[in-house]
């Protein structure tokens, strides 16, 4: 009999823990739901062990414990697949964000370049919505713009940024990719 008590206590503990995680917003309801349902189900079986006997007779499994094991496998499989789907979803979202960040970064660079003297622009891109920022020309470097120096602050400052680039620490280096790693 104490085995059933053990199962019930375990389930109560699991539900309590999940509840705590939900309360502190460390787990979302859509993930906690299935675990809570599972724990409640096991608890019901713990309280009414005859249910398992009845159920296994119903589906034609000789030993009730085998039915429980099989069901446990199925539930865990379902959870794993759900998590895989969620991870894929997250990857797609991070991918979209990464693309957006790159686009915004280029736009900022181009705006900076335009502000810091569009006269230096070569005639290569007359109608471009975003002018090509990094021109090989002298003063058009987008990084350390003279005036709006506060603007490009989110990118690592010219001092910190170009450290990994051994090349001449001119404009293009500064706005580059300090945030990636």
């Amino acid at each position: 009999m104490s085995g059933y008590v053990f199962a019930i206590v375990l389930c109560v503990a699991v539900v309590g823990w999940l509840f705590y995680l939900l309360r502190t917003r460390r787990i979302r309801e859509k993930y906690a739901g299935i675990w809570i349902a599972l724990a409640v189900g096991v608890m019901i079986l713990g309280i009414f062990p005859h249910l398992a006997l009845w159920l296994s007779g119903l589906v034609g499994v000789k030993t009730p414990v085998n039915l429980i094991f099989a069901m446990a496998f199925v539930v865990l499989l379902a959870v794993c697949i759900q998590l895989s789907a969620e991870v894929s979803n997250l990857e797609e979202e991070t991918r979209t964000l990464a693309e957006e960040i790159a686009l915004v970064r280029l736009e900022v660079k181009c705006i900076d370049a335009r502000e810091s003297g569009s006269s230096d622009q070569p005639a290569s891109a007359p109608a471009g919505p975003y002018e090509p920022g990094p021109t090989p020309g002298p003063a058009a470097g987008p990084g350390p713009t003279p005036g709006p120096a506060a603007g490009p602050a989110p990118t690592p400052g010219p001092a910190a940024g170009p450290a990994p680039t051994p090349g001449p620490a001119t404009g293009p280096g500064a706005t580059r990719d300090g945030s990636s790693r």
Partner: protein
Amino acid sequence: MQHPDRLPLLVIIPALNEQESLPGVIEEVRSSLPDAHILVVNDGSTDRTSDVASRAGARVLDLPFNLGVGGAMRAGYRYAFRSGYDRTVQLDADGQHDPSAVPGLIRAIEDEHADVVIGARFAGVGDYAVRGPRKWSMRFLSSVLSRVAGTTLTDTTSGFKACNRAGISLFAANYPAEYLGDTIESLVIASRAGLKIRQVGVTMRPRAGGRPSHSPARAAVFLARALLALVIALSRPSEPVATAEAPA
């Protein structure tokens, strides 16, 4: 909506750690396509790809981490879509694709009213050869995809592609990041969306670095993954082209 004067061609070059070959490629694009804008999509390179590209005068789209060719290309097409380009060409940063073939691809867009034009090996031009099992699997894929696209395609894994506005807007919304998604699946998506796909024979040069693998095991893995990609892509419902504005 339309810009008063039409934007030139946009050449999109996805690049991952290509600091050696990229300047040469950009230089070559410059000389054979003087009017084109060049966009290098730096796919999370750990070397100085971005630096080298911007110094060579290209615009650089810096992805914060590696997304694979599909991710890089979707970012490139998004840029093209939002900036209002009507024509794009994507070519590889390793110098495999000859920029002087680009006008031929664009002409196919204009003359045959194609939406997506593939620069294809094995189309009678050039002597690029692949042997053994890899060749068979590529040939098989080509025959299946030719049927899907309703036109003869001999090189479905080519990364040398030109798009018009409809192609750009489709790929800006929908360019898979999966393995082979940038080639096989994107073709399926394009033909399912009702875009007209054509191919133009081009010569391909040997890659600057790396060589195509001819080992049977690798070829088998390639074929298996390609088939999986193909089957899944074909089973998927088609996605309409989300044209924000009518293609020019």
